[in-house]
Each structure stands twice: as C-alpha cells, then as structure tokens.
C-alpha cells in the first residue's frame, strides 16, 4: 500500500491526486505502527499513541495543503503541477 501510494505520487499530475496518494502512504505507515505495537509489545501503548498523533498531524497537513491548492487554482486556473512554475506572479 505504501508503494502504491508512492507510485501514485510519482505518476499523477493533478495536485489533489498527489495528495490522495500521500494519504495512502501515511495510512500505511500508521497501520505499521499499530500492528508492530500489537505484535511485538502488546502491553505498551507507544505505537498506538504515535498512530493517534500521526492521524492528527495528517489532518492538519491535509487542511493546509488543500488551502494552498485552492489558492493556486484561483491564481493559475487549474491544478496540474506543470502549470505551477510561475507561482510568483
């Protein structure tokens, strides 16, 4: 799942599609935290809380990224990454 996300990150051109791939990657990492915590150290809670904080940080990151995308859409007109090389004006 992590590598599917990376594949999408490399091959998609739309910024929202890239963000969706990023969500997949983060989600895979969080599953790994939870699963390793459960299987290797079942009586500790570190992995679970790491996952919890990861989820919150991902939500924050998504909100900011979507705000940036909407702003870019307003100034450029579409959200393909090749059109964003003239961000300064």
């Amino acid at each position, binding site marked *: 799942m992590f590598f599917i996300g990376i594949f999408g990150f490399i*091959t998609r051109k739309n910024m929202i*599609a890239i963000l969706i791939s990023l969500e997949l990657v983060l989600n895979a990492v969080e599953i790994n935290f939870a699963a390793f915590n459960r299987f290797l150290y079942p009586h500790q809670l570190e992995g679970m809380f790491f996952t919890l904080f990861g989820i919150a940080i991902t939500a924050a990151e*998504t909100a900011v990224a*979507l705000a940036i995308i909407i702003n870019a859409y307003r100034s450029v007109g579409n959200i393909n990454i090749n059109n964003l090389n003239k961000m300064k004006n």
Partner: protein
Amino acid sequence: MDPIINLIIFSCLGAAMLALSIMAVTSGSLLRSATYLLLVLLCTAGFYLFLNYHFLAAVQVSVYAGGVVILFIFAIFLTTSKGEALFKHQMRRYVFGFLCVAAGIGLTAFMLVKHRFLYESNTGMVGDQEISMSLIGQTLMGTGKYQYLLPFEVLSVLLLACIIGGILIARKK
C-alpha cells in the same frame, strides 16, 4: 477468537485494502479516487478493530472518513470544472515509477522473508485484551514517563496554527 476466522478476516481486509488503494491511485476521475480513498480508510479502521484498538478505529473513522475526505471532496468540487479530463504524464515516467515501486517491494519482501516475520507472527495470537478507555485518557493527559500531555498540547497548537494558516492562505485577497 478462532485463529482460522482471524486469518480469514485479516486476508479479506488486506486484499480489499490493496485492491481499493490500487483503484484509488489509478482511477480516472478525481471524485472516484476520493471515494476509493474513503473505502481504504474505512478498511483501515476495520483493521484497527481487528487489532483490538477500538479507540484508534473510532478516531480513524471520525477524523479521516469524516473530516479529511469531506475536505477532499469539497476541494475537488471547487477546483475541477466539469468535463475536464485528467492530464497524464508521458510513458517514461510510468515506467520509472513502476521500477522504483518494484524495487521497494522486492526489498521489503526480502527483509520480511529474511527475518521470518511472516512465519512467526501468526495472526492467531492477536491479543484479546482490550485497552480500557480510562487508561487511554490517563496516558494522554499524564505528565510522567510514557505519558503524553506535552505532545498533546503541542498538537493542539499545531492544529490551531493550521486552521489560521489555512484561512489566511485560502482567503480571497
């Protein structure tokens, strides 16, 4: 629970998650991609339930499936005009990405086989003890060792900063 039933549930969840994430990455329309993402996140919540992390499953459903996907759908509605097809990269980029991914999967599989995680961690041993809610609350709010008040507060400040930043960026000039 019966180990066989556990294994079946695990395989079904894993297969569904893999298939849905492949579809989310390769699907043609953005809205459909976001829907597949939602299903993947719900499968992940099911996975947490399977691991007996009930609180984590609830957080996953409410934050991801409730908040993040709604944000995605709003952004898609705001930024795509009707009937606009997605542009594609040239073929070389697909080949390159596929090579990277194949190398990564090969490396991971090699490590898994080498360290015999696949054989030793049989899914029948998933603990049946559920973490109590009061333990989670005390760990999240405590200040001792292995307790998480400071990250919690830092995270709330981060979320506040993100809200303000998001408003500031997306605001009309």
